[in-house]
């Protein structure tokens, strides 16, 4: 089974600064998707950004961007110009494309981000 590792249980960043959250994964598949989800105190899971493994170009969504290193199996999230509303738990997720396993999602253990005013 695939595993997703987030080695930073907690991170903090000053408002308006930049922070990078780390994620590594283990897989034998060649094609898959990677995601970053945000879970604010409301516990609602919100998609932040997605990356297709076959694409070399790193995905960006406004202040959020990723550094996808397929060979290293690394998928980090960079948040620029951090805002107070960015404070949340962030989960890295891997989506298998194997139909026999129901296209499963595998989640990391999360990184709790604090934004300091």
């Amino acid at each position, binding site marked *: 089974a695939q595993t997703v590792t*987030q080695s930073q249980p907690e991170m903090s960043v000053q408002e308006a600064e930049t922070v990078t959250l780390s994620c590594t994964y283990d897989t034998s598949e060649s094609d898959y998707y990677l995601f970053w989800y945000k879970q604010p105190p409301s*516990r609602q899971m919100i998609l932040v950004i*997605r990356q297709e493994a076959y694409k070399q170009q790193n995905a960006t969504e406004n202040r959020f961007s990723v550094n996808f290193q397929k060979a290293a199996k690394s998928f980090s999230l960079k948040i620029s110009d951090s805002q107070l509303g960015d404070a949340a738990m962030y*989960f890295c*997720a891997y*989506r298998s494309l194997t139909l026999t396993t*129901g296209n*499963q*999602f595998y*989640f990391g253990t999360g990184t709790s981000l604090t934004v300091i005013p």
Partner: protein
Amino acid sequence: SQTIHQWPATLVQPVGSPLSLECTVEGTSNPNLYWYRQAAGRGLQLLFYSVGIGQISSEVPQNLSASRPQDRQFILSSKKLLLSDSGFYLCAWMRRTGNTEAFFGQGTRLTVV
């Protein structure tokens, strides 16, 4: 547009009592459906997934079971709750193909006392 409903939002149940959490999806057909549990301060643990009516796969052996009686309905059950069943339960759905993400319900906070 697609929506996912999960209820109840909170639940307090005594040890040994039964459990039934329900999840329904609207606006799509043949979704993959998932039940996750999130223990306090922990990540999401996949409990069950379903690729079709009556088709349930279990990821972790435990005190819980799941059923999919209809295409867009997914139920998480237990005959006798344990203290360790306490946690935050999330239902999710996903299209079978394409680069879509998983869409999550609002979650159920279960406390077993």
